């Protein structure tokens, strides 16, 4: 190798080093629509959560358990949200799509929700506080809570197939509506999502 090639080498190296340092100077922020699909790393993201919520809501309102209950009982069913277990290989926040499902169902007017066991601790302590401090007229009596008719439970499972830089991920979200008096499962909702991720072998 001649010397000029070496000097070019060093010039290139200096440029590369300086270039690397300069690239990280200004962060660029772009606002996108909350419904836009942004798949960056291949992990569970908001698009997945939205797809699950859409499918579940559409399914739960169109099945037979709802009219069958309203005809027999003459009122809308009351549901309490139980635990949705994350049995997948990612740290997924299940609250995002559960909150979406709750919102859609309550707004449709056909299903009632009551506070889950975590939420009602705060409510109960507030009620106890009202017992001591609020006026007789505005005090809310204890023991007036609505008992739920159904409990919503579920799990997220994943199956991964990976070799070298390629991965195929399969997510399955299962939700069950269980009758609290008889333990019968009246509705089972399922959403499957599959992704393939390829990691480039060369980077700058």
């Amino acid at each position: 190798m001649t010397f000029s090639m070496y000097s070019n080498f060093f010039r290139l190296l200096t440029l590369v080093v300086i270039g690397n340092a300069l690239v990280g100077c200004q962060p660029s922020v772009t606002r996108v629509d909350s419904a836009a699909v942004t798949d960056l790393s291949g992990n569970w993201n908001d698009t997945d959560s939205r797809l699950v919520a859409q499918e579940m809501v559409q399914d739960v309102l169109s099945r037979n358990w709802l009219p069958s209950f309203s005809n027999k009982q003459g009122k809308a069913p009351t549901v309490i949200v139980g635990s949705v277990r994350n049995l997948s290989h990612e740290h997924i926040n299940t609250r995002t799509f559960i909150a979406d499902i709750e919102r859609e169902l309550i707004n449709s007017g056909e299903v009632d929700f009551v506070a889950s066991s975590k939420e009602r601790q705060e409510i109960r302590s507030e009620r106890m506080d009202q017992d001591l401090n609020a006026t007789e007229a505005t005090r809310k009596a204890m023991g007036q809570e609505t008992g739920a008719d159904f409990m919503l439970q579920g799990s997220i499972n994943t199956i991964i197939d990976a070799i070298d830089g390629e991965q195929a991920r399969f997510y399955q979200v299962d939700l069950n509506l269980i009758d609290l008096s008889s333990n019968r499962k009246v509705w089972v909702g399922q959403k499957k999502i599959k992704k393939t991720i390829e990691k480039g072998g060369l980077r700058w």
Partner: protein
Amino acid sequence: MTKWSDMQVKLACVVCCSLAISGCATYSAKSADMRSSLLSGQFAMARDLAEKQQADKDVLAALNQGMLRRMTGDYVASNQVFEQAKRRIDELYGVSVTDQLGALTINDTLRDYQGDRYEQVLLHAYMAMNYIQLGELDAARVEMLQADVKMREWGDAPEEDAFVRYLSGIIYEILGENDQALVAYRKAYEIYKSSSNRLGLATPQIVKQDLLRLLATEQLWDEYRRLKTEFGMADFKPVKTAGGYGEVIVVLNNGLAPQRQENAITTFSHEVSQLVRIALPAYRYRPAQLTRARINVDGRQQPLETVENVDALARHALNDDIALITTRAIARAVIKYKTQREMQDNHGGLAGLLMTVTNLATERADTRSWTTLPQEIQLTRLLLPEGQHQVNIEMVNTAGRVVDRMQQTVTIKSGQRTLLSEHWVAPAPVISAKSK
């Protein structure tokens, strides 16, 4: 003295740049303060030293911060920075052009540190143990699944980590998923059996006992009998617990992982027909472990067994890589020699000298590794009656005297398993050797 031409000025700039980038000290020298604080038992001070580094782009800084936060009891913050390390390791997948260029012209420390395979997998193990301490067992399960995917991605069995498999088994057992736990324990046993050389230890007795116990619980008698003869544990009886008993699993992180030192050797290169000087990383001789660990609860004593020998894994990992490191170092030395010759021939003595000085100063070995990992991970399990117990982890020297004791109070609930974890670093002997 010749007037400095345009070219020489430019070259001087490059020289200064490269000196600034690589620094003139190895990683071991830079992290000496943190290591000596740890060796004198001052975890908080070591943590403060580690927190001074930037963890968002530097995997090693993040790993050290995570481990030190864990040692000082801050599990949430520890997991936060471990998660950063995990993400950065993911980003560093593949071969980087600038890294390779830097490695061939200056030194190996210009490459971003990705972590050896055993370190990447133990990262998941420590995140899982953090989650267990926080009571989030599902999150710990997620970490174990991620470790599983990683090990499967690597494909070949020799890279599997037996301790991580065993820990997965423990987590599945705590969650009540006995079938998954059985698969994990079986895998752990297979790896211990087949890779005892690389792992640096024989199959721990506790793993054999757990495998047999779970087989008995699941009533897989054929396998139970076959493994019983294979283990040579003919008088093993699975303990049938009446109600009112729970299990405590004690994990002790003993010591610190070994630190790489720099070895400068001179070798003959045929390409330039000259002696060239290269710097390679190496491990020093490990002093024998003179203290043994045991737990002391309610008057009962039980020794702790080593389930993971990180020291052996580290040495083995370096052994695997040393051929490639040496080849790269020799190629680099040849390139450096050629540049200094050309400078001398074409631009005079001063330029040649400047080049030689740069080359010598930047020839440092890459001594980076996750040194805040323990030297070994020791474990034992004990059945205790319900209620509160004072668990003492005692370090006993060869004379049988207790040199150190760590205490933790644990509440046992019937039928449940609790995990207890401690870090202990033996005080270093006061023979000071100058480490490069």
